[in-house]
């Protein structure tokens, strides 16, 4: 994935260069176009939620940015240090919790940092446990620690909380919020949950038919219930769900 110096349509609105620049992303599977020219810029430390209906291409964008799709066309500029949070925790069942957190990470003090990351997700006591003995929420927290220990400049999340029960999901969202405030990575967060996007994101981008059809800042509306509600209805409408 060679960096390109092509100018992108949307500027980050900050003086420093953005964390992610995607331009003209195209992808088709057996003749069916899934991505049809996606442009997206994410600023440093910015949290962007990618909303869209099933099949609108949001996960394909994320996989392309994660470097998991060798057949995608277009320009992608991403930071060196990035980590991915999958929908499933994707922990190696044969490795202890701490070995999972350290997987693939190289640093002289990696074990200490893995311990710190586990403490941050409140699993300091589970270091030597097998992943299968943990609950679904705990497993996803280990996955979060695995992402954090790399000190990512970009965190890619593919519906990470959608398989969790409602209460655990709320706790995980709060935890992610706290961690993002502390570590300030840029985040690309794929979800189909409008509430989750409104709660977490600085910006919401909506995908439809392989393009980003709407790009909307959220942070300003937060703290103003009326504006937030209007925004919620607007986004739902754009996703094809009319409000009541």
């Amino acid at each position: 994935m060679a960096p390109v110096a092509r100018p992108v349509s949307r500027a980050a609105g900050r003086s420093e260069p953005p964390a992610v620049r995607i331009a003209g992303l195209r992808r088709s599977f057996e003749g069916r176009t899934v991505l049809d020219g996606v442009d997206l810029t994410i600023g440093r430390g910015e949290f962007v939620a990618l909303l869209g209906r099933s099949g609108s291409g949001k996960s394909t964008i994320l996989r392309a940015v994660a470097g998991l799709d060798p057949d995608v066309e277009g320009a992608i500029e991403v930071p060196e240090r990035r980590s991915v949070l999958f929908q499933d925790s994707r922990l190696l069942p044969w490795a202890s919790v701490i070995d999972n957190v350290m997987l693939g990470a190289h640093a002289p003090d990696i074990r200490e940092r893995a311990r710190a990351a586990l403490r941050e997700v409140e699993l300091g006591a589970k270091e030597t446990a097998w992943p299968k003995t943990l609950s679904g929420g705990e497993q996803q927290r280990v996955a979060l620690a695995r992402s954090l220990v790399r000190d990512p400049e970009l965190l890619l999340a593919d519906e990470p909380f959608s398989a969790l029960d409602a209460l655990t999901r709320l706790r995980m969202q709060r935890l992610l919020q706290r961690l993002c405030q502390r570590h300030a990575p840029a985040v690309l967060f794929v979800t189909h949950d409008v509430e989750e996007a409104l709660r977490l994101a600085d910006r919401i981008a909506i995908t439809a038919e392989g393009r980003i059809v709407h790009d909307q800042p959220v942070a300003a509306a937060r703290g103003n219930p009326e504006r937030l509600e209007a925004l919620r209805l607007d986004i739902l409408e754009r996703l094809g769900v009319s409000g009541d």
Partner: protein
Amino acid sequence: MSLISFTTPASVLQRRPARGSTDARSRSLLPKAPVPLQRLVGPILLLVLWCVASGTGWISPAKMPGPDAVAASLAGMIGSGTLATDIAASLQRAALGLSIGIVAGFALAVAAGLTRLGDALIDGNIQVKRSIPNLALIPLFIIWLGIGETMKIAIIALGTTVPIYINTHAALRGIDRRFVELGQTVSLSRAGFLRHIVFPASLPGFFTGLRLAVTQAWTALVVVETINATSGIGFMITQARIYGQTDVVLVGLLLYGVLGFGSDALVRALERRSLSWRQSLDQ
């Protein structure tokens, strides 16, 4: 403090799930928890049956000597030291052949499972070898390697390579693609990928292969030790057959049984230790 409080009678809390509820049913699908040494129950029962049958004279001592006669000749062989020599010779052959088979089977499985060239060169040949009975190769091996130790160990090694290869290869091919993706996202090196994902994921298959290979090693031993051997359990049995010593034949069979059972138990223990992350019926 709430104004209304509820108390639940203890009898309600402790009531067992109704018959036919999912909880009760899912429990009954599993075998009951194992008792220590429960696998010995069957063999011990067989031994008791043998004692009773020969003690009451149901079986003629000429065809099948009683446990006392077998025990006496076992004691005699231990005393004279020939038993120790024979067991040592057999163990050495089995261990050497098995070790070669394990290394070869695993290496071939990794080569065929992870590289296209390896798959093209190796897999077809192993499938062909699989359908040729190992013992049918003995005449050829005698011509190539002679009738000495090399031929015996080669036959055992070849026989044990196949089950190790087949099961390890199947496990390697079955590695979850999601873990491969994970390896990519955490930028694992090729060596790290092998060490953290491929080898651990193939271990359950390897152990299945190992248990089959151990059995295979003992089986092959019986046959190769009838060819120009001067020691070993197979040699002992062949000699006893010539002189009509039924009791010695039985001592030999008993030894094979004990060695086979013991080595399988050893492999199981090793497997349990190495795969302790799995939650299976064994635990």
